[in-house]
Structure formats: C-alpha cells, structure tokens
C-alpha cells in the first residue's frame, strides 16, 4: 500500500465502430522473432494455468468422489471435527490462497523474462 497513488487518467473506452487495427504501438509481434517470443510466453502461461487447474481438480474436486467411494473416511476425526468439515471448512482456504500465490509469482516471472527479452532485442 506504500506505492504512490496512480495518476488519475481520463479514458474513453475502446472504439466501438472500428476493429482494432495494427499499429506501431501494438505489441511487437510484427517480426518473426517477436512472434516467437510471444508464442513462447503464451505457451508458458497456458501451461502454468493448466497446472494450477490440475492441482485444484486433484486436491479439491476429487473429494466428493473419494468420500463417495469411501464413506467411512467421513467418520475420521481431526482435532474434534470430522474430516470433511476440517478439509472443506478450514484447510481448503489456505490451499486456495497458496495456489493463487504460487501462480501469481510464476506468471509474473514469465512476464518479466519476456519483458527482458523484448527490451534486449530493442536495445
């Protein structure tokens, strides 16, 4: 919260009647090399997103199936609370925040690497 307050700008929204045109200010995938960099950034981000979704599926979305197949697990007690309540009432939230945090760090690192590459190429 210590960062300076961003300058307030007046924006007018995207043009509605015209399609976005190619212009010199667009991201520079105009050259073959720029296109390669960008494609690799996109691939890395897509892979990262898929990994997070996969972890979410395995650790959280699998639980109904697990408890359906082994209903006896619901009687296990963790600290005086039954296992499903401990998992879905408490433990799941740190997990979700942790997943989000690790995603944020990696996504920003991919973008920093890309920015460094692009700047290097521009000189």
């Amino acid at each position: 919260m210590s960062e300076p307050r961003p300058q307030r700008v007046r924006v007018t929204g995207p043009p509605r009647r015209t399609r976005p045109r190619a212009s010199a200010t667009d991201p520079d995938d105009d050259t073959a090399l720029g296109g390669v960099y960008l494609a690799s950034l996109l691939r890395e981000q897509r892979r990262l997103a898929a990994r997070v979704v996969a972890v979410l599926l395995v650790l959280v979305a699998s639980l109904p199936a697990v408890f359906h197949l082994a209903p006896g697990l619901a009687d296990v007690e963790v600290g005086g609370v039954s296992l499903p309540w401990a998992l879905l009432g408490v433990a799941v939230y740190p997990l979700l925040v942790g997943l989000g945090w690790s995603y944020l760090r990696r996504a920003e690192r991919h973008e920093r690497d890309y920015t460094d590459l692009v700047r290097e190429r521009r000189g």
Partner: protein
Amino acid sequence: MDVLPGVVGVVLVTVATLAIGTWRQRFSRTTSDFFVASRSVRPGLNASAIGGEYLSGASFLGVAGLLLVFGADMLWYPVGFTAGYLLLLVLVAAPLRRSGAYTLPDFAEARFGSRTVRAVCSVLVVAVGWLYLLPQFEGAGITLAASVGAPRWVGPVVVGAVVLVGVGSGGMRSITFVQAFQYWLKLTALLVPLAVLLVVWVGDGAPAPASAPDTAAWSLPIASGGGPGLYATYSLIVATFLGTMGLPHVVVRFYTNPDGGAARRTTLAVLVLLGVFYLLPPAYAFLGRVYGEGLAAAGRADVLVLELPRVVLPGLAGELLTALVTAGAFAAFLSTSSGLAVAVAGVLGQDVVGRSRLLRGREGDGLSGIGAFRVGAVLAVVVPLAVSLLTPDVGVARSVGLAFAMAASTFCPLLVLGIWWRGLTAAGAVAGLVVGGCGCGAAIGATLLTGTRGGWTGALLEQPAAWSVPLAVLVMVGVSLLTADRVPPHARRFLARLHTPESARP
C-alpha cells in the same frame, strides 16, 4: 422481541452507505468515473470492494443455515465461491484487464469484431444480473421481517431505494468506497457475535452438539441419494467454480484496476479476504447444532445467524448482537445489489438507452453517457424489484444457483476460449452462448414451473451446470472449427495484447 436495536443497526448502515457514497460523489465527474472509477483503484482497496460486493446475503445468512440443515455437502457453496476466484485469477484476470474493455459485451465486441456477439452478451448480462438481484431483494425482505418484524415489502424497497441513490449519484467511484467499507462491516458483524458466542459456549463447558439421528449424512460432503446426489454435488462444483468469472458485477470490477498485474494482485487479495470470511459460517452452523436445533426443526434455519445470539444470550446483550448481525446482513444485500446494479446499468446505459435517439444527448457530450447510465440504473433496479414484490417466493437459494449456473454455461466458455484460443469465431461464440444459456435456462425453468422431482431427472434439471457447461464448450469449439475460415483477422493481434505485460509494450 425488541426491535429497536435492529432498526438502529439498519438505519446506521443505510446512512453510512449514503454518506460515503455522496461524500465521494464530488470526485465523480467524468463518464469514466461512473463506469470504471477512472481505472485508478489500488489493489488493496479494490480487493475489499470486490469482497464487499461479492459476499451477498446468500453467503452472509444462507450458507450457515444450509450447513445447519444439510451438513457438509453445503460446504461446497463457500468453497466454490472462493475457488471461483482462483480460477478467475488463473484464467482471466490479467488478460481481461488488458483487453481494455468496460463490460463483458465490450470484451466480446473487441475480440470478435461482431455486433451480434455483443448483443447476445448484453442480453445475457442483464439476464444474469436480474436473476442475481431477485434473491438479494427477497433476502432483504426476509431479514427485516425476521429481525425487526417489518412487512416483507419493506426490505426490498429500502434496498432498492438506497442502491438507486448511491449508484445513480456517484457511479462506480463512490460505490468502490461503499463496497470496501461493507466488506469490513460484514466481517465484523459476523466475527464479533461469533467471538462472544464462543466465549459463552466455553463458559457452558463446551458442550458437544446434540446428536442428531442423521449425523453420518451431516458429515458427508456429498448430497444424499447415491449417484444423482454425487452428480448434484459435482454440478454445484462446476457452477460455482466456473460461474464466478462470468458474473457481470465481478467482471466489471476488473476494469477498475490500473493494469493486468494489479488485476492479478487484486484477485489474490480477494482470495485471502474470502478465505477469512468463509471460516465463520461453519462455526455458526456448529454453534447452531449446539444451541439452535429448534430453529432448524422450525424451518427457520435461514435466519440462524440472526437468531442465534438471541437464543444463546437472552436479554440486551443478545439483542445488541442480533442488531449488529442484522446491520451486516443489510450491508450484504446493499453491496451486492449495488454492484449488480452498476454492472447491469452500464450495459443497459450503453446498449439500450445510449442507442435510443430519444434519450441521447448531443454527440460527444460526456453528460449523455452519465445520463444514459442513470436511466440504465433505474431500469436495472426497478425491474427485479417489481418482480420480487409481485412474486414473493421464487426461492432465494435457487435463484442464486441459477445465476451461477447461467454464468458458468455462457460467459465462462466465452472468456476462457476467447482469451486462450485464437480459433474461436463469432459464429462459434454465439452458438455456444445460445445453447448454453437456453439449455441452462430451460432446465431451471422446468424445475421452477413443475416443482422438484427425485432421481436422475430431478438432479439433471435442478443442477444443469455439469452438462450445460461442457455442452456450451463443445458447441463453441465445434462451430468455430466448422467456420475456421472466419476467424477474426485481428484475433492474433488481440490475443497478443491480452498476454503482453504492460512493461513490454513499446
């Protein structure tokens, strides 16, 4: 029942909401302020605002009551509401912000260069927004009826009027501060009574819950009924995990971030705020099992959070705590309704009112945009308000579920495919939106009209998300592949813009 503390609580929340809204109004001058707070809202403030807006009456009151009655399978509601934000962070947050669009229809038009997709999206935004506003108004009526004994129409009318004044006068900028205030109010209003009740519980010797005959079902996180129950649970997971990113009032908030990176950090902060908040309803459900079995038996579980302080602590202390919870619940209805009204008013103002020659001012006049927004706000609030007054019992939980399922079946595939897959065409998008929206809408419509039925038919109709979302995705991908020669020519460049960090822009 002493009504005075409750009335004072509601009046204080209303006055504070209006005061913050109008105090901030002097900063709200341009059309951009109205729609997106000039995109200068910082992540911390923005995350509180998103949390305040997102935690509706369903979360504040409904979840604890559902947990008390049905047990662990209802934990999927708060888990899904939170996990939805993780998926939003991972799949859409930064690219959506970088698309530079105001609303979902703006995004659709920019991505596909098609007015048809835009029009379909506008209709869907208004539909989802109105569906979600309905239970807010109904819930406000129930709350005021339970806590201060007011007639059922008072709650909806008060909420509608306050929202209209706040939204109409200050737009998104004033609403941002109001929402941020309301997150912390809601957290306090649940946390303080809970702390007191826990102290009382420990003082009573920490009694265990009165053992109900269905303890096994209460601790199993799957809906009862074997196969259909498992399906219904997974359908709820699909709807809440994927529906969040398609809710219009959630998505519109991302345009108020300064850039894509800030949008990501805001979303992570929201995850933290939601995680903290959703620890509380299960605790209420647990105390409800100890002290409030009578409430569940009397079918009044939906007011568990409001009544529990009175039940545990008879006398003034209990009344004061109930007043605090009532104020929090009212804040929940106000904030979610405000956010939805802003989102729906933005779309109505731009696409319906702004188009009509009668209401449009001079070209290029900034006021015509604000004027259109205000007319849109009136439409956004009055229509669902009238419906909720005319049809008192649509069913609060079911409407909220329908809004999530509808958003998951339409906007989720549109956003995810539109952001990550260049091959999505306008024809594919429209086909998927129509199939997903109609499929989901028809299933729930059939349930509402003909009532619930058991078995597979009932599960498939009541919880359509698990089939309607994959169906929408398949149609979008299939039709796009069939019309592959009509991939928008600028799609490559548009995707590049969505994924290029601001720091790498020339």
